[in-house]
């Protein structure tokens, strides 16, 4: 379970980026965090991952193991000399994860067995994201945090990735926190949506979110079937 109470954050003496956030995420849920650029989504994720310390308030995280899939494809050094298998091997060895067949199983999970010896720079955005999801779930995490998993990826790969994340949540019962710009995917896959705007957030259900989003961005309030 993840419980966020009166959470505020600012860098030094600058104005608050996050202002008094409160929400609770129970085990096995899939939550998407939505909002405009600069609304504080990434900061919230960094706080949940423990990369930043709250200025005020608390984050109570009872999950045993958290895995993170960052949004790295665009910034990746495409000439980095590392194969898919080596990416997974160094993760397994550095974390001392047991299992002689773990890498093969992880590649099978994302249906990428034939790419084991491919250099990471030769992969497409979708393939790269799948490898990073495979790496993240290697240690059987109970919380998976993803940062815009469909960013810069074609529609076909997007569908495959969301199917994969959904099955990890629904079948393996891994709790998912996903920062999203893909409204359609968020509404289709999430149990809950957390809408952020100017450092303030609130929980809503997918149907209400559409109305709120339309009101905020177009001034029109009507239900659209997605």
């Amino acid at each position, binding site marked *: 379970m993840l419980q966020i109470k009166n959470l505020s954050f600012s860098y030094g003496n600058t104005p608050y980026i996050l202002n008094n956030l409160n929400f609770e995420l129970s085990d096995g849920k899939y939550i998407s965090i939505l909002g405009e650029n600069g609304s504080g989504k990434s900061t919230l994720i960094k706080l949940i991952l423990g*990369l930043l310390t709250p200025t005020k308030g608390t984050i109570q995280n009872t999950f045993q193991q958290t895995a993170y899939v960052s949004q790295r494809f665009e910034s990746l050094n495409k000439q*980095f*000399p*590392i194969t898919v298998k080596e990416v997974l091997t160094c993760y397994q060895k550095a974390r001392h994860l047991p299992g002689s067949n773990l890498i093969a199983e992880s590649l099978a999970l994302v249906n990428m067995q034939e790419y084991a010896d491919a250099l990471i720079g030769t992969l497409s955005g979708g393939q790269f994201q799948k490898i990073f999801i495979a790496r993240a779930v290697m240690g059987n995490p109970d919380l998976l945090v993803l940062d815009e998993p469909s960013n810069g990826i074609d529609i076909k790969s997007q569908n495959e990735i969301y199917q994969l994340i959904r099955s990890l949540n629904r079948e393996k019962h891994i709790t998912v926190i996903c920062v999203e710009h893909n409204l359609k995917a968020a509404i289709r896959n999430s149990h809950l949506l957390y809408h952020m705007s100017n450092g303030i957030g609130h929980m809503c259900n997918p149907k209400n979110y559409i109305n709120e989003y339309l009101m905020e961005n177009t001034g029109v309030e009507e239900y659209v079937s997605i």
Partner: protein
Amino acid sequence: MFQYNFMQNAFMIAILISILCPLIGMFLVLKRYSMMGDTLAHASLAGVAVGLMSHVNPILGAFLLTSFFGVVIERLRRHFKNYAELILVVILSLSVGIAITLISSGAVHANVDSFLFGSILTVTSQDFYLVSALSLISLFIISQLYHSLMFMIFDEEGALIAGINVKWINYVFSILVAATISISIQIVGILVISSLIALPIATALQLQRGFKPTLLYGILFSFIDIVSGIFLSYWINAAPGGVIALVSVFLLLGVLTFQKIVCHAGPILKLAK
């Protein structure tokens, strides 16, 4: 030439250097921090000067002072995140300042030229044992941290979240760079040590292989650079540092040319078939 004791020592040290330099170089180059090698090489000159002045083995002096500067660089790198290269300039200025002041003031009663340009004539048995011990300890530590280092340079944020002690490993790595430089300066020379750290890896990267093959090719190229450099310098009676640097550059150019030819000839040969 192997009838001479100094030549046997020099050759043994050369083998150790040819393994250690690319091993460290691989992580430095991929971290895009090759200039750290150059900065710490200059810092080692200050260490040599302090060692000679205080009658301590100059290699040990170089190791201690270079390790200190390595740790300082790592500490400041965290503080000045967006201006990391500035720290290298500061440390380089400080260490060269110490070295030149000590040497030019006459406080050091010895010739430091052999450390600047490299020399195989000055390798004593004591140096050999010290270098061997430092090399073996360094190789052992790298073998223990190999996968964590690989994970960190590929995805430092991911390593941090996965629970890898990134901060501690970065400090240990800084000391390993210092040890490698201290071990290498006597044969290769302070002025060209950074080329031996970066060039064999730059050459191996042209082959576009995975991490382990690139590292192994780097070690092979480094071995070719050092051994042929030592042999050639012996025959033409020149300082080994300069010859090793020249061989490294020519080998890189050779591999680049070979790759270009293969890239262009490949499709033509396919069409001919």
